[in-house]
C-alpha cells in the first residue's frame, strides 16, 4: 500500500515541476516521469495489459515531444502568468476538489473489488464465465474483443478518422512545399 503513496507523491511532484518549470525540455521529461509512474502503478495493481500500453504509448509520445522540443531555437518560456486566468483556474480546481471529496466518499475503499459490494456486477460474470464463453486465456482480450466488441470498434473508428484527418491536413501543405526545388 505504501508503494502507491510513494508513486503518487512522485507523480504529483513531477506534475508540479512540469507545469512550473520554464525549460520546455525539462517539462517534457517530467511529463514522461508521470507516465512511467502511472505505468508502474498499473503494474503493482496487477494490470499488465494497461501497463504495457501505457509504457509503449508514453515512449512514443515522449519521443515525438522531445524531438519537437530540442529542434527549436528557444525552449525557455518567458513572461509571467496572467493573474486573472490563474485565479479562475484555482477557483475551478477548488470547486472540483470539494465535489471530488463528496464523490469519493461514496466509492468503495481502495483495493475492494466492485463485485464484493454489488453482487450483480458484470465483472463477476466476466471472471467466472470468461474462459468458457470466449476461449481466451487473457480475460482482458476476451472482454475488449468479445463481450465489448463495440467499444473496440468505436475506438478503432476514432483512431482511423483521426489519422485520416491528420494526414490529409498535414499532407497537402508538405506536398506543395516538396514540389519546390530541394536545397
Amino acid at each position, binding site marked *: 500500500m505504501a508503494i502507491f503513496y510513494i508513486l503518487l507523491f512522485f507523480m504529483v511532484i513531477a506534475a508540479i515541476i512540469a507545469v512550473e518549470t520554464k525549460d520546455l525540455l525539462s517539462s517534457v521529461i517530467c511529463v514522461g516521469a508521470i507516465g512511467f509512474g502511472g505505468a508502474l502503478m498499473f503494474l503493482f495493481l496487477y494490470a*499488465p*495489459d494497461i*501497463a*504495457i*500500453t501505457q509504457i*509503449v*504509448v508514453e*515512449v*512514443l509520445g515522449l*519521443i*515525438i515531444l522531445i*524531438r*519537437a522540443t*530540442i*529542434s*527549436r*531555437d528557444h525552449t525557455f518560456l518567458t513572461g509571467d502568468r496572467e493573474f486573472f486566468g490563474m485565479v479562475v483556474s484555482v477557483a475551478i480546481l477548488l470547486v472540483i476538489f470539494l465535489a471530488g471529496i463528496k464523490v469519493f466518499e461514496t466509492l468503495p475503499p481502495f483495493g475492494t473489488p466492485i463485485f464484493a459490494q454489488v453482487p450483480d456486477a458484470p465483472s463477476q460474470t466476466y471472471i467466472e464465465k470468461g*474462459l468458457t464463453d*470466449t*476461449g*481466451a*486465456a*487473457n480475460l*482482458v*482480450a*476476451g472482454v*475488449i*474483443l*468479445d463481450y465489448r*466488441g*463495440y467499444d*473496440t*470498434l468505436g475506438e*478503432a*473508428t476514432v*483512431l*482511423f478518422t483521426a*489519422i485520416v484527418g*491528420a*494526414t490529409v491536413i*498535414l*499532407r497537402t*501543405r*508538405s506536398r506543395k*512545399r*516538396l514540389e519546390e526545388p*530541394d*536545397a
Partner: protein
Amino acid sequence: MKGMTIIVKTISGWVKVLIFLFGIDVILFGHLTPGGGFAGGVILASSYVLLMLAFGREFVEKNLPIPLASKLDCLGAFLFAAVAILGLVFGGAFFVNFLYQKYLPGQALHLVSAGTIPLSNIAIGLKVGASLFLAIFALSAFRKDFQRPDAGGDGKSPVAGQE
C-alpha cells in the same frame, strides 16, 4: 535529414528487428498473455520511429512507402469490420464469436483458440501500427517544411537538419 552516426545506425538496425519481432509476438499472443492488438501495433510503429530517428526520413520512406502504409491501415480497419460482419453472417449477430462457438473451438491456453479474437487482434495491430507510423511521418514531414520559410533565405538551416 542525414541521420545519426554509424554506431547508432548499426545498433538500431539490429535492435529494430528485435522490436518488430516483439511487436508481432505481443499481437499474436494477445489472447493468451498481456498485450494485444493496440500495444503490439504501437510497438511495431515504434520500431519504424527508431529507424526514422537513426537513418532519417528518406530511408524510412524507401523502406515502408507511404502508399503501402496507408493501404495497410485501411486493410486493418477493413479486416476488423469484416470479422464483425462475418459474425453477423455466420453467427446471427454482429460481433458474435462464431469461430469459437461453431467451427473452431480450439483448446484453451493454446495459440489456436478463442475463435475470432486473434484475428481481431491482428487486424487492430496492423491498423494501429500503420496509422501511428503515418501520423508520425506526417508530423515529421510537416515540421521540416514548416520551419523552412522562417529559418531565413538559405535552404540549409541548421535547425531543420537536426534529426
